[in-house]
């Protein structure tokens, strides 16, 4: 299956051993998008790496940048102005909604529901417009910099974001009616691709895929970074409402609920954001001391981590990415056997992988 199959969300090849329609063994083959990101990093200065980081999980570039600058700031030990932290959280949460919208829309598309895809992409477009007035780019931003952000928010940004939240809240309900509680959709996704709790933890599954199995684990709460401890929000977990706990539908529905929580964080952040200079803490020259640092953030797909080894130069000696999709996909051979071929599509869609960060 693949590498050019429309439901593999990129170029992924899955080798399936079948008995009729039933899967006996599944083995993903990856590396088709390998572009030597980690090797490139060793030849670039820290600020130069940020645009490359955008291209890992290209649906959640803001969150990728967030993680990378945190890792570098940890090495540099610098204080960040409060306004910058708020801007990072606001852009990060908007990006999370955008990424989840793609995940939900394409998941519906994978199992045969075309209309929700159009609806989610219509709303995602509005978020991309917000990013466009912020930094000029719609997908790959280079907005979060080490020590700050490249420039302040557009004067209209907060007003437009508020308008977006008011517009978007009812649309989540619309999506629920259209897809989440759709009988055909539930038939295709409930009881399919169940990840048991112990398997999920043993395989390091993270993000909505882990929470779909019923574990309350979110880096924003369990290992808070930036200013996430200032906000009041819940961590939705799967409850097995449509079938078994930890099935495709649970993973799907956790994302829907997470969108609502992101909206809550956005509202609080917009109400609290202070004035201030956003570029004051940006260092002239990023040259950290010798040492290692690992910083992780809760990406829409799961736990994104950057492991940086510095030997004291302007370039890192080693950058290793803990890509959530990479780890989440590695559980696939464990859960696929026993299902039908058509369920592979549902399982891959519910894991919400992006090949850009799997292959790096």
């Amino acid at each position, binding site marked *: 299956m693949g590498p050019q199959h429309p439901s593999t969300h990129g170029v992924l090849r899955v080798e399936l051993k079948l008995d009729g329609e039933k899967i006996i063994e599944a083995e993903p083959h*990856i*590396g088709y998008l*390998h572009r*030597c990101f*980690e*090797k490139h990093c*060793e030849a670039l200065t820290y600020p130069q790496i940020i645009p490359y980081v955008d291209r890992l999980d290209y649906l959640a570039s803001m969150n990728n940048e967030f993680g990378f600058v945190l890792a570098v700031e*940890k*090495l540099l*030990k610098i204080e960040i102005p409060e306004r910058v932290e708020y801007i990072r959280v606001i852009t990060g949460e908007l990006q999370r909604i955008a990424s989840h919208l793609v995940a939900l829309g394409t998941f519906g598309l994978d199992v045969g529901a075309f209309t929700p895809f159009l609806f989610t992409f219509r709303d995602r477009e509005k978020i991309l417009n917000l990013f466009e007035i912020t930094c000029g780019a719609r997908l790959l931003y280079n907005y979060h910099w080490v020590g700050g952000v490249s420039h302040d928010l557009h004067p209209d940004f907060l007003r437009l974001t508020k308008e977006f939240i008011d517009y978007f809240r009812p649309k989540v309900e619309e999506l629920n009616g259209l897809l989440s509680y759709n009988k055909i959709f539930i038939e295709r996704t409930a009881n399919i691709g169940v990840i048991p709790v112990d*398997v999920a*933890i*043993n*395989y*390091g599954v993270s993000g909505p895929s882990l929470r779909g199995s019923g*574990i309350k*684990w979110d880096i924003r709460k*369990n*290992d808070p970074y930036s200013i996430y401890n200032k906000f009041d929000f819940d961590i939705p977990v799967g409850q097995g409402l449509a079938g078994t706990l930890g099935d495709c539908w649970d993973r799907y529905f956790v994302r829907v609920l997470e969108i609502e929580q992101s909206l809550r964080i956005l509202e609080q952040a917009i109400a609290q954001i202070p004035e201030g200079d956003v570029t004051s803490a940006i260092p002239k020259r990023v040259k950290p*001391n*010798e*040492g*290692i*640092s*690992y910083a*992780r953030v809760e990406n829409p797909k799961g*736990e994104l*981590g950057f*492991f940086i*080894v*510095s*030997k004291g130069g302007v370039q890192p*000696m*080693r950058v*290793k990415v*803990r890509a959530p999709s*990479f*780890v989440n996909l*590695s*559980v696939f051979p*464990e859960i696929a056997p026993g299902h039908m071929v058509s369920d592979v599509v549902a399982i891959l869609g519910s894991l919400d992988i992006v090949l850009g960060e799997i*292959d*790096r």
Partner: protein
Amino acid sequence: MKSFEEILELLKSNFSGENDISSSKEGTEDIINVSPSLIKEVSKFLASTEGLEFDSLILLSGVDDENGEKVKQEDESNDITGGTLSVYYHIESVKLVHKLILKVSVERENPVTTSVSSVWGCANWHEREAFDMIGIIFNEHPDLKRILMPYDWEGGYPLRKDYRNPEFYNGMKVPY
């Protein structure tokens, strides 16, 4: 939840060999160094002992330490002999919410260590990547083969500091 010192003492008392377990500081991070022959047993111990319960491997990364002897070549690149390659294990307990970093260093000329994929499932792919990129060999790994590079790549291990592009790959010129 145990502190770093307590975990270190616990490991030292259970694995008594000389220089098998030691601690070091790199930057701000505390690290437990483990000898390659012990890593599987240590991992098993950390994962299953009550009060530690490191049930999840966050990240396993292979690193070329670049601490050997360098000889400059004509094309400005370096040949490196001696020194070590390292594997960092970031582990964590979802249940008890604590983290730990382990480090295993192997000789560059004989980069052999033991796989921990029987303890943590996701180590399987991480170890394949470390093998693919740095060339560290994990004994007892169920299926140690390349993962990101093509399966028939014979040009060496790309993330080693003395890596040089091969001239040809399957009869095609590199760089083309």
